[in-house]
């Protein structure tokens, strides 16, 4: 079997960024039934920062990672990811953030979430505690090291576990997934071809199915390890605030 060093599907799925695209449209719940006329509804208004934060975070108490899209990024994640370097650590660190993407026009005066970027030179992205404090602004040109430092600092305050160690462990899991995926794909192709050609009674079918079952068992073991690594345990809300105070020396 030729070696394939690309990430296989399971690892790709794990590395996918889980963006949330929040919107603020309370008027839509109150709209009367459509009567055939066009209806452009409300006058949009920028919410106060605290309310904007509440709207985007909802019931999610993870720290926030908020990116605003721009014309240069053109729908990519270039503000967060490097085009030249391996982004896997960044992508894994995001697993413990509530990742929010806001549209280009969030900087218009009347956008509901405008006040999240109220500075004179608004950042391209920012990280903050779940309730909006300790904001770390980034301009999209930050180095990977700067980004990781900011993310790890925030994670240390919000979670009990060690994110850095967890990332190392999960990367090992991803490598194992790649091996398992490649093997399973190979065996499944052979199984399907054998079923097509010889039917279910062929002894090759049983042998291949046993191999696939063994891979599934190994996969389940890796998944269990991965789940444990991912569970960094959010600090209880009050404990997180005390911990932050301790870090500040206050």
């Amino acid at each position, binding site marked *: 079997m030729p070696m394939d060093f690309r990430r296989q599907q399971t690892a790709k799925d794990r590395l996918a960024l889980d*963006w949330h695209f929040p919107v603020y449209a309370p008027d839509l719940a109150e709209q009367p039934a459509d009567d055939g006329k066009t*209806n452009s*509804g409300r006058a949009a208004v920028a919410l106060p920062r605290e309310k904007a934060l509440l709207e985007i975070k909802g019931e999610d108490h993870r720290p926030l990672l908020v990116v605003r899209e721009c014309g240069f990024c053109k729908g*990519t994640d270039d503000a967060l990811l490097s085009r030249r370097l391996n982004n896997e650590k960044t992508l894994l660190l995001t697993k413990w953030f509530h990742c929010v993407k806001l*549209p280009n026009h969030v900087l218009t005066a009347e956008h509901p979430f405008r006040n999240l970027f109220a500075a004179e030179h608004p950042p391209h992205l920012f990280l903050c505690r779940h309730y909006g404090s300790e904001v770390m602004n980034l301009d999209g040109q930050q180095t990977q090291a700067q980004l990781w430092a900011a993310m790890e600092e925030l994670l240390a305050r919000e979670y009990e576990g060690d994110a850095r160690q967890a990332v190392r462990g999960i990367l090992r899991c991803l490598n194992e997934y790649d091996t398992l995926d490649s093997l399973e794909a190979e065996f499944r192709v052979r199984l399907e071809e054998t079923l097509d050609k010889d039917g279910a009674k062929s002894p090759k079918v049983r042998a291949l199915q046993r191999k696939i079952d063994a891979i599934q068992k190994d996969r389940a073991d890796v998944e269990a390890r991965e789940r444990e690594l991912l569970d960094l345990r959010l600090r209880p809300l009050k404990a997180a605030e005390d911990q932050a105070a301790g870090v500040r020396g206050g």
Partner: protein
Amino acid sequence: MRTLRLVAFALTIASALVAQDPRPEEDETKEKEAPRFAPPDPWIKDEDEAKALERLGYLRVGRMTWGDGHDTPRIQEDLGKLPLIFIETAHFKLCSNLPLLEIPKEKDARKRLVEELERLRAKLPRLRPKSIRELDPWLRAHLFAQRLEELYAEVAGLFGVTDASFPPESETFYFRGDAPARWSAEWMGRGPYLGNKGKFLVLLFTKQSTCGRYVTTFTKAKSDASARWYFEQTDSFLFATALDFGEGAFRTDVALHAHVIHNLVHCFVDSFKGYSYVIPVWWKEGLAHRFRRQLTDEHNNFEAIKDQEKRAFTVYDWDERIRMRAEHGLVRPLAAIFDVEQCTDFDLVDHMACWSRVDFLLKEFPREKFGIFAGQVKGFVDGRGNPPEHARLLERQREALSAAYGLDPDTFEAQWLAWLKKHRRKQ
């Protein structure tokens, strides 16, 4: 009454041209001016717009009503300064945010596209299909508008219906019990669009985030994938997707076209004679596969498929594969899936079998029988719009198969398997 389950599932690309049109001042006493950020249509410039639209078969472009509680200016406002092209045709409202695309170099894809552009040329005299090198955003929108109407005509033809088969827009009844005798004797839904009052809504975005924002704002569908949604107030079906979904799976024209076909066939079947209940999925999915495979054997789309079936997206020789499996007795029998409403546990063989069974019905029996079958499965509601008990609905499907084809599920299966075998021997 069974709860209607609304299916949402997904698929991805982006480029946003930011025009600098100033936003008009809001005035409570006037209807709000609709901002437009798409450039003017270059294919009809210098023409009288009304005449050009008439030639294209469009009712309007730009400002129009859309789904429950929103219109196109509201969509534009919420999604920002994106170049959104809104077109209303006889049966659809299309929102296109597709970027410029180079004509494919691959011979078959190019040939297929040129044929479509030749048909479009009758409506866009400036078009030179053989010498064109790229499809600009407006041309892509015109092309999809044509495709949508052509697909609608094919499916309506298969169901044996025309616009006149359904209640006109002027009718205002909601329940069957309130409808005049002409429309209550055989329930054909509430309106002219395969039974729906509202036209089919199709949104083709480039960025996943834009699609996600539209879906989150205006529907309750999941925002991380392509979505179909039913708007109750406007009685209309929506399909929204983005080129970015599926790691850019829909970036080529043919992949996007295939994806749209698959989903719209589902919308058409759900709409047919009004959306009142969920029907067994085997023939709906089989029909969607059939229409999609008429365009291309590649670019498989699935309503749902078992998780480990990742290879399903790279296996295309379905006719040969299903025959081989059937010969070895390795196809899940129709009786096992006849009443199933979701295909979440279908594997690739199940999907191929659904397609092949529908293919068999359409090839081996007069086409109008499929319309009889579909027509009896759908529209089975009482005076208050309630479908009967679930078991009765399932029984209705059996009756429909018998009325249209003179078959029960087991006989159908036996005939289909014999047909597969006969075809294999001929090869």
